């Protein structure tokens, strides 16, 4: 009897496998697990092995070893050359200049800028969600502008505005110096202060979106309960609101920290002219000479990223944790700012105009003046935009950017890249979200969930470096294919987050109702699930598109030539000092991104903040 029971109870292994793979969610998870291991973990190992490898060029000369052989040279040179015999000892050593000093700078910049971003973004988020401030619509729309724009936009604006002949390379005067005659000191124009400010302001909208989402979901009853118990306004904020949003605030801080740490374009614009280096800019310059050392810096940045994830996990796992600040409160009573309402609103609007609108005006201006620093009407021309066969432009191109075949080709490639990445990452995000939510709690689901978020924590530049290392081993990862691959993997986290949150809102019965009437899986996805959560899913497509369009650091190591896409081309132009074309290209990128963002938003309701905020 017992034997018989055994036989019927145990399913043969073959049947088990068939059962397992008959569920689409399982197939998706297995495929994603394998793919993500190949696309994130394997490249990571490649990167690590590259740090122990001798590369062609100076490394081979220095080590007197053959290319590709094992060496500890890079580690010794970068981390342990503490005294080169210079008069100041450690302060002049290779390790200090190449590694420890950039590391300290990175820390200082990242911490300062994430604090700025959190405080500024958090305050605006509180004002918009919890108070009766004026111009709410305008503020919430314009405040996300800086995040949609490329990260160097503000940096470029900063230098356009404040640069003068007394500081840094000092080639020409900016708007402030030439129009008002005010010469700002060097610390204000280049180095730590402007980099931290610009990064802080750039990521403030990101913090705003995340914190605003938390505040919107936080039950207003929690605050009202304190009000009833005679708590003062200040005490409610300090004892109730802040502690409750603190874990979420902390993970926002960590995410912003991770992003600012890997920022590349901003330190290039505002640091390099005065030889102020951070890890990302140092790594980039090492990539041309000592690849091994560059890969070590990339590894260090990745270690920071992983450490941040670990801290975040540990923090949210604590006993006091209360990540479930969900539960929509229908009746939110807004804090009455009374007389302060107008001044605060006006101040905010002014700041926003400075941050989001004035840069655009400045780019337009800089792109039409012939001689730098002269803002009179006689000195203006549209030749840099629509000129044809004009040798005096003298900036590598005789045509204005809208007529230059080179630039139009780059624009085409940029669009192709952004569309490909958004289609691939977006679709994968929907599928991953489906698989992860359907099999919630299982090992595979957790693994795929973490793996799909992992690329988020890898600094863009380091991620580019990984794939560069990989391209030496896997020959077909080159050219456009490499760019599309790296972009899709890097932006998968955005898409999978919005995919997961969209699927979580969808009750199981909705799909089961279709299963009962035997609708095939693909049809359930296309006809039932996708249409219901259309705007959430589309946000998962929009975010990779926007990010790709304005991305520089991810692609800069992998582009075949710097003419390939707009952002790298822009970088090249501004390095060569071709300001008019640089500003014009920058404006072109921003306008394309803004137009597409708002068109998609108006047509489908998808939006950037939905993608991140969930």
């Amino acid at each position, binding site marked *: 009897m017992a034997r018989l029971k055994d036989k019927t109870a145990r399913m043969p292994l073959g049947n088990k496998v068939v059962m397992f793979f008959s569920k689409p969610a399982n197939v998706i998870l297995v495929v994603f697990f394998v793919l993500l291991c190949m696309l994130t973990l394997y490249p990571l190992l490649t990167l690590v092995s590259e740090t122990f490898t001798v590369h062609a060029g100076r490394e081979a000369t220095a080590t007197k070893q053959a290319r590709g052989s094992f060496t500890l040279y890079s580690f010794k040179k970068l981390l342990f050359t503490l005294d080169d015999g210079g008069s100041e000892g450690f302060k002049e050593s290779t390790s200090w200049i190449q590694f420890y000093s950039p590391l300290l700078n990175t820390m200082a910049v990242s911490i300062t800028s994430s604090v700025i971003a959190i405080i500024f973004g958090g305050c605006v988020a509180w004002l918009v969600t919890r108070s009766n401030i004026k111009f709410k619509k305008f503020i919430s729309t314009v405040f996300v502008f800086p995040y949609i724009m490329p990260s160097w936009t503000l940096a470029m604006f900063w230098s356009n505005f404040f640069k003068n002949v007394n500081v840094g390379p000092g080639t020409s005067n900016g708007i402030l110096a030439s129009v008002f005659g005010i010469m700002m000191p060097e610390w204000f124009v280049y180095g730590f202060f402007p980099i931290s400010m610009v990064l802080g302001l750039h990521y403030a909208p990101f913090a705003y979106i995340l914190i605003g989402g938390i505040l919107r979901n936080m039950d207003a*009853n929690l605050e*009202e*309960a304190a009000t*009833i*118990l005679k708590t003062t306004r200040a*005490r409610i904020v300090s004892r109730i609101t802040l*502690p409750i949003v603190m874990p979420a605030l902390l993970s926002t801080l960590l995410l912003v920290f991770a992003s600012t740490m890997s920022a590349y374009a901003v330190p290039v614009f505002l640091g390099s002219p005065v030889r102020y280096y951070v890890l990302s800019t140092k790594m980039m310059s090492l990539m041309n000479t000592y690849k091994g050392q560059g890969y070590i810096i990339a590894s260090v940045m990745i270690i920071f990223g992983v450490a941040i994830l670990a801290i975040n996990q540990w923090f949210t796992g604590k006993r*006091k944790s*209360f990540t479930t600040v969900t539960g929509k409160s229908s*009746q939110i009573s807004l804090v009455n700012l009374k007389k302060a309402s107008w001044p605060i609103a006006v101040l905010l609007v002014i700041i926003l105009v400075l941050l989001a609108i004035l840069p655009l005006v400045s780019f337009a201006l800089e792109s039409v003046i012939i001689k730098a620093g002269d803002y009179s009407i006689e000195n203006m021309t549209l030749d840099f935009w629509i000129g044809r066969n004009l040798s005096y432009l003298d900036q590598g191109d005789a045509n204005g950017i809208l007529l230059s075949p080179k630039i139009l080709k780059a624009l085409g490639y940029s669009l192709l890249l952004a569309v490909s990445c958004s289609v691939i990452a977006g679709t994968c995000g929907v599928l991953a979200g489906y698989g992860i939510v359907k099999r919630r709690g299982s090992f595979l689901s957790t693994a795929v969930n973490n793996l799909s978020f992992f690329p988020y924590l890898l600094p863009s530049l380091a991620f580019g470096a990984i794939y560069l290392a990989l391209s030496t081993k896997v020959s077909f990862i080159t050219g456009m294919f490499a760019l599309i691959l790296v972009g899709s993997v890097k932006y998968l986290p955005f898409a999978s987050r919005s995919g997961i949150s969209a699927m979580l809102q969808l009750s199981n019965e909705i799909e089961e109702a279709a299963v009962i009437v035997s609708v095939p899986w693909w049809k359930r996805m296309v006809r039932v699930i996708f249409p219901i959560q259309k705007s959430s899913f589309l946000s998962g497509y929009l975010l990779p598109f926007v990010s790709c369009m304005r991305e520089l650091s991810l692609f800069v190591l992998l582009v075949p030539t710097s003419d390939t896409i707009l952002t790298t081309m822009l970088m090249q132009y501004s390095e060569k000092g071709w300001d008019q074309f640089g500003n014009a290209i920058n404006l072109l990128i921003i306008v394309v991104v803004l137009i597409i963002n708002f068109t998609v938003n108006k047509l489908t309701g998808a939006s950037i903040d939905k993608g991140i905020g969930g």
Partner: protein
Amino acid sequence: MPQIVLRNITKRFTKFVAVDNLDLTINDGEFITLLGPSGCGKTTTLRMIAGLETPTEGEILIDSQVVFSATKGINVPPNKRDVGFLFQNYALWPHMTVYQNIAFGLENLKWSKSDIASRVAELLALLKIEQFSKRYPSELSGGQQQRVAIARTLAPKPKVLFLDEPLSNLDAKLRLEMRTELKRLHLDTKSTFVYVTHDQLEAMTMSTRVCLMKNGLLQQYDPPLTVYNRPINLFVADFVGNPTMNFISAKATGKGSSILLEAESFKASMTTSQAPELKDAEVVIGIRPEYVCISDEPTGKAHAVIYSNMPSGMETTIRLQLGKTMLTSVIFRGVDYPVDKKVGFSFIGSDILLFDKKSERMIASGSLQLI
């Protein structure tokens, strides 16, 4: 001692009127229930009295002090109104232990440490949650969280206590238990309770007076049994009571103490003390299920067929079919009538009601004999 007075309170949101011209007086020590279907404005009313919501028009007085007046521009903030509020989802602060949650309000009142400790201990004992004082809310069950929320609300000894559907998140058994305890708590604390619910059973069993609302309009404000036996209109009659009242359309003729009623499937005469003059008037007869009596043998006057029979042990709910009309009857014992059996029926008691069909208002009450 606090008395709460609402005068012409109106709350308009951009698209609709949540509360429309409400007048209400709540006396000291009462247990008032604001009852009504969801969206009828009861929670909004409660929140306006507490100060969490600002009325568009009208005046609110607590303890003869004006706390809100639209014309005089007075709006006392909630923390100055000396009230307690129990939220539907408890709103326990997730980052504080049970002890800290209860003590927080007392700290705001600048109580001394020892006073706070003894008051919290007293409440923990009163609500039987001593063993949880060091736990966080997420580590408690729904019923335990509910008790903590009550303790937190009671801690500063508020004179007036507002409760917003506090039992709706509990399971049926706990709800029954908490109902008893809340009623007991009302007696022990001697505070005024204002209680919002959509559950007519809670309103019936706990309150001293029920305030029934519909679409922002006050329908009836009376003790529960008055609301049950003498509902002012068809809506009230239908909303209160389970199973619901039987409504039968009829034509009425008569005046004084006797009215002749002609329904589709029976004729009857109603004996009443006060009745308006009626001539072929369209009316609705309202009969509570417990006043429909079934006899095994069909008599000559009227008979019906058993449509369905649902014995629950203690009582039996029976649906009777009379032609096209359905009648619900409740008998206080377990009986199992075979379906489709022919039976006789009659109406007992003197609480049979008559409503005007057009205005829906009650016009008479009395006893009903089949003829």
